[in-house]
């Protein structure tokens, strides 16, 4: 544990960013001490913390230089929308919030956005749209910040057609723990000079450097978008349709799998109405394209596949209002379940194994006599399993259930986290997917970037 931050350091920080942007009172930084991880498993924040809000890369650099000299831990935070405690400052130190660095420019010619790390996902979506362009992924909460989206390699529902954050980042400006500023990549689509540090930094969860700016690939705005809701009587019928859709040549933005109980619960939670009450399992499929004819032709192909798997109907939402309502209800299954939830998992398996994984999750639930509601991004085999409080007798039991689900995912050729990341609550499970050698390499990389282990310090990495 580091000692309390010396007053002289606080004065230096005030000198860098101005008095107003150094916050020492605990009550004014409460919201910076947690993220969206369910309460029961979220790590506890440390006591002696100060919050600093720089306005430029130079200021970030000066802050890190001081912290590095004095060996003070630094916790970069974004919109605090993560689900694995990654942004929780667990040791006495400095929290850096880049919220004041929130400018976004669009380079229309090259279809790129140049965004500061503190701009939000909502800002980026809006700026892209105003420029007649499109930022396809929608990794949940629009309050998430660019820096956090990159540091966690955020995924979300619309990854099938265009990929996750990793596929969009073409350039980065970062500040190393030593205060050095690195400018990587740029507005270029091909770059083949040595090891790809951009890809290494994406998903590094604030352990290697502080991201200050990013060049983000945008896409032309699709002219027409629809959302299909397809109910089935059984999970098997729904999930069997997914690989067939992906093989057909139609590439949807998203294929989401939900079950009727959870989606109705989410609608109730929002005081909304879910438009389709038929069936037990439903697929939500989002498609876009350049014209109504093109997209409806793709819908007909999907309809043919789903009907051959006994779909009960194929419902079509076309108005922005109806489509937004469907996406909003789907995105809020987590918030609806959260009050009674202990953990949300995001295991990922090869898409063709999703049904097997879900059946096994059901079997684990029955064996322990607990409720494990599950839904997910069926197109990329990413399943969200919720461990609910109901029937849980101890945290030991939670650990066992979680362990069995992880084991099953790994046995099916998958991994323990597809999009939420490791954060601070999955560290103990790393050895299930990474070999000793692999972890040793990761530790080596961390030492090269951060020799004094000041940035989001955590163990065993």
């Amino acid at each position, binding site marked *: 544990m580091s000692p309390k931050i010396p007053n002289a350091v606080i004065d230096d920080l005030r000198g860098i960013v101005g008095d107003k942007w150094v916050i020492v009172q605990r009550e004014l930084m409460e919201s910076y001490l947690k993220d969206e991880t369910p309460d029961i498993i979220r790590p506890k924040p440390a006591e002696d913390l100060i919050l600093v809000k720089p306005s430029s890369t130079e200021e970030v650099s000066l802050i890190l230089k001081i912290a590095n000299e004095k060996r003070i831990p630094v916790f970069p935070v974004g919109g605090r929308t993560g689900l694995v405690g990654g942004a929780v400052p667990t040791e006495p130190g400095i929290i850096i919030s880049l919220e004041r660095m929130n400018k976004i420019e669009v380079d229309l010619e090259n279809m790129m956005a140049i965004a500061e790390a503190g701009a939000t996902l909502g800002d980026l979506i809006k700026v892209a749209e105003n420029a007649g362009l499109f930022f396809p992924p929608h990794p949940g909460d629009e309050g998430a910040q660019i820096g956090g989206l990159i540091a966690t390699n955020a995924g979300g529902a619309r990854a099938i057609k265009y990929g996750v954050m990793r596929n969009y980042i073409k350039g980065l400006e970062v500040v190393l723990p030593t205060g050095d500023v690195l400018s990587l990549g740029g507005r270029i689509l091909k770059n083949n000079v040595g090891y790809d540090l951009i890809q290494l930094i994406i998903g590094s969860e604030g352990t290697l450097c502080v991201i200050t700016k990013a060049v983000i690939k945008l896409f032309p705005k699709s002219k027409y978008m629809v959302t299909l809701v397809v109910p089935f009587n059984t999970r098997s019928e729904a999930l069997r349709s997914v690989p067939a859709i992906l093989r057909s040549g139609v590439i949807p933005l998203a294929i989401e799998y939900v079950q009727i109980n959870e989606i109705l619960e989410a609608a109730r939670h929002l005081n909304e109405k879910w438009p389709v009450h038929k069936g037990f399992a439903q697929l939500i499929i989002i498609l876009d394209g350049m014209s109504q004819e093109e997209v*409806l032709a793709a819908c007909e192909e999907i*309809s043919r596949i789903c009907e051959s798997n006994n779909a009960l109907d*194929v*419902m*079509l939402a076309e*108005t*922005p*209002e*109806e489509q937004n309502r469907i996406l909003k209800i789907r995105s809020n299954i987590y918030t609806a379940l959260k009050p009674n939830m202990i953990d949300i998992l995001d295991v990922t398996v090869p898409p063709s194994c999703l049904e097997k994984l879900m059946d096994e999750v059901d079997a684990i639930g029955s064996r322990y006599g607990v409720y494990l509601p599950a839904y997910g991004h069926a197109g990329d085999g990413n399943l969200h399993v919720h461990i609910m409080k109901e029937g849980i007798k101890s945290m030991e039991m939670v650990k066992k259930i979680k362990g069995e689900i992880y084991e099953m995912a790994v046995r099916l050729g998958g991994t323990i986290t597809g999009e939420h990341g490791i954060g601070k609550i999955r560290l103990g499970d790393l050895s299930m997917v990474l070999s000793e050698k692999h972890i040793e390499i990761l530790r080596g990389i961390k030492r090269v970037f951060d020799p004094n282990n000041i940035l989001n310090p955590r163990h065993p990495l």
Partner: protein
Amino acid sequence: MYNMRKRSEESCICGEGILNVMPGYIYGNCGRMQMNIIVLMKQVPEIEKVRFDPEKGRLDRSSAGATTNPFDLNALEAAVQIKEKVGGIVTAISMGPMKAEEMLRDALARGADKAILLSDERFAGADTLATAYTLAAAIRKLGAFDLVICGEKTVDGDTAQVGPEVAEFLNIPHAAYVEEILNVSENNIVVKARMERSHYIMRLTLPALITVTKDVNTPRLPTLRDKIRAMRAPITIWRYEDLEEVADPRYFGFDGSPTRVIKVYTPSAEKRLGKMISGSPEEVAREIVHVLIKNKIL
């Protein structure tokens, strides 16, 4: 008064033709009551995206895509639910450019049986009065009807005047801001309507007009099959000449509109004021009370 509930030449939707006409309502050969329901709809710009042209004082409709006025989907859903309950025919009518055909095709996919678009340059530039006059003329031309349903307002104009004005032109009773349809029988409809902070339960003798809020129902999604079927369905287009026989064309379009826009301005957004108050709890409380009194809140 013009007999608005005269016998319709339409067949019953069961396809067995019309057997008998009682005063005021129609029975099909199947023995079911058949209601003729008309839904008035409008295609509006996507309101979250559309820009306002301050020079011309109107919406720049080219700045956003077009969609169905959301309240009109509730009106259509209400009509389709009544049709499903008591039988009948739902006719969607809209006035607008030819592009509005796509909205009417969507209405057909969502359960309307027929769609009519009033489209003519000479209808353009209409205010609420001229719009209502033209829509009422179209309803008159259609002949028999029992019920007209509109959304409470359109999101581009926001006046909520057209529905009630249509009722006045047709000389039929109306109820605005209907939140619930309590009962529909052969001669009347009972609705719960919102007025300010109160609710009124009203029984309207048919034919009547109601405007509905978003609370009245949740519009269903069309099936893909219905959507594709509707893309090929015919839309009846009525032009200026088609309505001349039932109305006085001097009241159509811009020339028939008494409304003149003198000035349009955007109200300036009030900025929230923030103030940090520090001190002991007593001092802070005293300062808060002082600020609230000074700003005439207390």
